[in-house]
């Protein structure tokens, strides 16, 4: 990463020729933004997106399989729900500490924690979506000669889509937020510049605001994009 802070810099780090704004540690110094977009903010943003995509992607795959099991065999529903509950209840910092002896100070450790948090939201949403299909719809599917698999693929899954996508939205936004804590372990994602700013003795306001603001912006953008996807793939849902 940038490294200037880890080296234990001065109260106002040495940026070469600091502007007046930086000298008085102003709330938002555009010159710093311009200079450090390329070496600090942009890479952190890309890393953050990567952390989120991997966590939500793997989390979705696992949650989907678990939800299938809970859907097909109802007795597994409560235990699986309890498991995702438990994972979600572990404070993230504690979970990192538990994982470090196993996977070290790595991105993998962070992803394991982030993924396990998405399960809680995704599992519940996928399962409730699959269960939301009205009885009469299932009966007419059966009566018309759908096989069990056809009923699942052509009826239950598409009708569960609004709930599933709603879950993906919540999980994505939550992961973007929680992923900032990754910087507690490694210099990775938008959490890193946030931590840097906080650890600056006088609190480096511009960096805090810029990186924190980016995290918020990322969350809002992701939410908006997913909302558009949701509307596009379930046109029928708006009518209900």
């Amino acid at each position, binding site marked *: 990463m940038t490294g200037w802070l880890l080296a234990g810099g001065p109260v106002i780090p040495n940026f070469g020729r600091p502007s007046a704004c930086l000298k008085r540690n102003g709330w938002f110094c555009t010159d710093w933004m311009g200079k450090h977009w390329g070496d600090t903010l942009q890479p952190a943003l890309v890393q953050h997106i990567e952390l989120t995509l991997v966590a939500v992607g793997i989390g979705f795959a696992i949650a989907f399989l678990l939800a299938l099991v809970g859907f097909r065999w109802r007795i597994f529903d409560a235990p699986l729900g309890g498991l995702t509950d438990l994972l979600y209840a572990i404070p993230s910092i504690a979970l990192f500490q538990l994982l470090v002896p196993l996977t070290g100070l790595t991105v993998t450790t962070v992803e394991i924690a982030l993924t396990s948090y998405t399960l809680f939201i995704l599992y519940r949403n996928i399962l409730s979506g699959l269960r939301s299909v009205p009885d*009469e719809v299932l009966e*007419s*599917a059966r009566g*018309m*000669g759908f096989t069990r698999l056809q009923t699942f693929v052509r*009826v239950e899954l598409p*009708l569960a889509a609004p709930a599933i996508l709603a879950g993906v939205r919540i999980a994505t936004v939550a992961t973007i937020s929680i992923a900032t804590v990754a910087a507690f372990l490694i210099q990775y994602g938008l959490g890193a510049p946030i931590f840097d700013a906080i650890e600056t003795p006088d609190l480096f306001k511009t960096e805090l605001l810029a990186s924190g603001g980016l995290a918020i912006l990322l969350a809002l953008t992701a939410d908006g994009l997913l909302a558009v996807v949701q509307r596009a793939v379930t046109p029928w849902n708006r009518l209900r």
Partner: protein
Amino acid sequence: MPSAAAELVFDEATKVYPGREGAAVDHLSLTVPAGEICVLVGPSGGGKTTALKLVNRLIPLTGGDIRIDGTSILDHDLVELRRSIGYVIQQVGLFPHMTIEANIGTVPKLLGRDRKWIRRRVAELLELVGLDPDKDRKRFPAELSGGQRQRVGLARALAANPSLMLMDEPFGAIDPIVRARLQDEFLRLQHELRKTVVFVTHDIDEAIKLGDRIAILREGGRLAQYDTPQRILEQPVDDFVADFVGRDRALKALSLRTLGDLEPTSAAGDGLPRLPAETNLRDALAVLIAEHREALVVVGADGRALGVVKREDLLR
């Protein structure tokens, strides 16, 4: 693809639910001739819906047999059996996420029909059930009224041209005015299509209006009487049937015939009420009572008087 109507035979068909006292359907034996509407009617607990669902094996038989054109339903592949039978239920059960076109095309698609064939068939069926093929095909079920949805349900059941239709209280959740219209249209359709239909209802008036034959089931799924509407009304086999069809069964029997069925005399009809020949005798009698008259003039489709009918002619 089957298209000709099939003969349906219940042969001692029996359903006993495990852990429940008594049978839901008890040794039911009846034959529905090809191309006729058989209405299953009776009080709740009479097993009429169960009997219907035995046919497409949504509920498995406990004993006896059901045959379609001589072949036991148990000898059919389950999925193929269901695809070959039209199925309409009260809550319609349209797929909310599919357009009307996709809903109606469901079974043809399962059967591997190509898209062009399905498109043509859907347009044909929408027209048949009184919907607009251009306007309605791309709409979703949520955009339709209850009556329109049931029309789509009927079109969907007809899509693969089944030889047998099962209809479980299809008009039960629809308001009386629309229901009467749907019943009339259904009869008009049936006149053209001549399907074998098993129709479940708890409404004896609907049974009388629609049925070529009526099977009255009593508590415990036992058949009380299986007959034409006329005979059920005029000769109920026991008190249960007589009670079920109601004290006004003589009036209901009147509704089965129209003024056109009578032979009007050529007496002078000045000042008498004028009624079209397709008016049923029950309505004609009601008019005579309301207007304190003893006779009326029957009018043909062209508006010309066919003759005079007296009150006692109606009651004969």
